[in-house]
């Protein structure tokens, strides 16, 4: 069976791979036999090999060197390009983070290939599905040049285990000067959250301008915590200083695709929809019965969020006992 290279994206905390990696391994199986590629500082692969094997990696290519992490994006694209040249895989699948998309782009130039970003599905013949224009249009696209390179949007595919050998194979890292131009001097974490990561969460509760203040966002957080959900915010809520930008959902924020999205005090502007329209189930709470968010909602409550949200939180908590 043809080999498909899957780039592993690791948790920044160093504890395993991100869920998007398992999704990428699952999606890659439509095209052939996945091999995982782990790029990072020495010692990176040891903690993730088993996980990669469990999700179908026959081979785990391990390219470890301090420089891979010390410089931005370019080293990873360079090592991956070497592997593509050596192994001639049927395709390359990369989780669709900002870094993943940039690696895909540089890899495409290096290997004279085409690449498709943010695909939500890959068919056996290589046709990919993409969502365009704030979720209003679904397109099917195909790479017609070189080795097809895909970046897979998070939460589009359900990760399914498919145990494979996961044989480690070391890859020598020798980087050009060009790959070492942009030094990552420091990685700074400003917001440590105990909640699930926004783009990976199964449930997201987002607040908008209707929440009315930063203090009042505590009712959004409480509902989220009762559901084990991540918290998101509209741009109006972020711009008004109610919630940090990291949590913005929409065109210029995060794209989320959870099982359940609850929009609270959010009108449903097209740029907000762009970030949440592909959620499986959408619930809206808004006092304006004409709010466009209701056009998307599977279930809507027309009412004041200040009464509905705390009452819902209380009942959910009570049900859990």
């Amino acid at each position, binding site marked *: 069976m043809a080999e498909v290279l899957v780039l592993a994206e690791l948790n920044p905390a160093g504890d395993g791979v991100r869920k998007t990696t398992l999704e990428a391994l699952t999606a890659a199986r439509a095209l052939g036999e996945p091999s995982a590629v782990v790029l990072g500082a020495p010692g990176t692969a040891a903690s993730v090999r088993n996980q990669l094997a469990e999700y179908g990696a026959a081979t785990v290519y391990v390219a470890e060197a301090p420089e891979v992490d010390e410089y931005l994006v370019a080293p990873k*694209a360079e090592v991956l390009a070497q592997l593509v040249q050596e192994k001639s895989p049927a395709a390359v699948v990369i989780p669709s983070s*900002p870094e993943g*998309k*940039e*690696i895909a*782009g*540089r890899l*495409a*130039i290096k290997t004279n290939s*085409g*690449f*498709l*970003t943010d695909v939500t599905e890959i068919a056996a013949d290589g*046709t990919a599905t993409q*969502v*365009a*224009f*704030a979720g*209003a*249009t*679904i*397109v099917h*696209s*195909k*790479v*017609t*040049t070189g080795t097809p390179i895909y970046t897979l949007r998070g939460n589009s595919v359900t990760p399914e285990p498919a145990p494979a050998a996961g044989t480690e194979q070391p890859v020598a890292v020798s980087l050009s000067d060009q790959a070492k*131009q*942009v*030094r*990552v001097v*420091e*990685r*700074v*974490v*400003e*917001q440590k959250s105990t909640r699930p990561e926004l*783009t990976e969460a199964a449930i997201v509760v987002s607040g908008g301008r209707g929440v009315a203040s930063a203090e009042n966002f505590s009712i959004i957080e409480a509902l989220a915590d009762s*559901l084990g959900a991540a918290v998101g915010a509209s741009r109006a809520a972020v711009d008004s200083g109610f919630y940090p930008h*990291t949590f913005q959902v929409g065109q*210029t924020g995060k794209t989320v695709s959870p*099982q359940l999205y609850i929009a609270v005090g959010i009108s449903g502007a097209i740029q907000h929809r762009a970030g949440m329209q592909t959620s499986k*189930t*959408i*619930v809206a*709470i808004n006092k304006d019965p004409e709010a466009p968010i*209701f056009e*998307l909602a*599977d*279930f*809507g*409550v*027309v*009412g004041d969020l200040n009464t*509905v949200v705390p009452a*819902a939180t*209380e*009942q*959910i908590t009570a*049900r859990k006992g």
Partner: protein
Amino acid sequence: MNIVVLVKQVPDSGSERKLDPADNTVARASADNVINEMDEYAIEEALLVRDREGGEVTVLTVGPDSATDAIRKALSMGADKAVHVSDPAIHGSCAVQTSAVIAAALSQLEYDLVLCGAEATDAQLSVMPALLAERLGIPQLSGARKLTVEGGTAKVERQTDGGYWALEAPLPAIVSTWDTINEPRYPSFKGIMAAKKKPVETKTLADLGIDPSTVGLASATSQVLDFAGRPPKGEGVKVPDEGDGAQKLVEYLASQKIV
């Protein structure tokens, strides 16, 4: 300091956008076209750097003739001059090909710093700085929420989930900017009048030395095969809160096996 800002004209992200069934490309001619909103942050940042360091800001656009409106907007904000690459053969180009055109145009300009928006709101690929850095062999400092330039070095705070990465690279470099980096200015009346007299140089593929058969729909590295409107969702349920809104909501969540 010579700064080039990459500007794209796109269909307004707040309006209804369509693909053209004739060739599955973005229906640009019939769209309500505007400057890519994200590029305004790059223009603002270019003006701020120029005003601190001196030098000139050149706008570079690859787009159909109508893209002159986006160029005028950038010039009215305060950019000094513009280069507009327009050629019907470019129509239908994929990102890989478009980057080849932009790279060729950049190679004919003198620059210390190239700035662009972190994404174009039409295709939302967020890859142009990576593609151009790869082609030109210059550093890629993408996703900036902060930029400082001093003594031939660019320093960027690259926005990440929950924080930032501090990046550093020698000039010349390409930097892309998020909407957290600044607050773009509105063009003043004076700026709008002045923009009318600023030089806009138009170039074709021949001027860039690019063989037209290497760009455009026929030789794109990827193709849109077909498209469809997203299937409409079934009519949802909407209940007024008459004191029981929360209860109905929780019952719904329970029926979906969520709680």
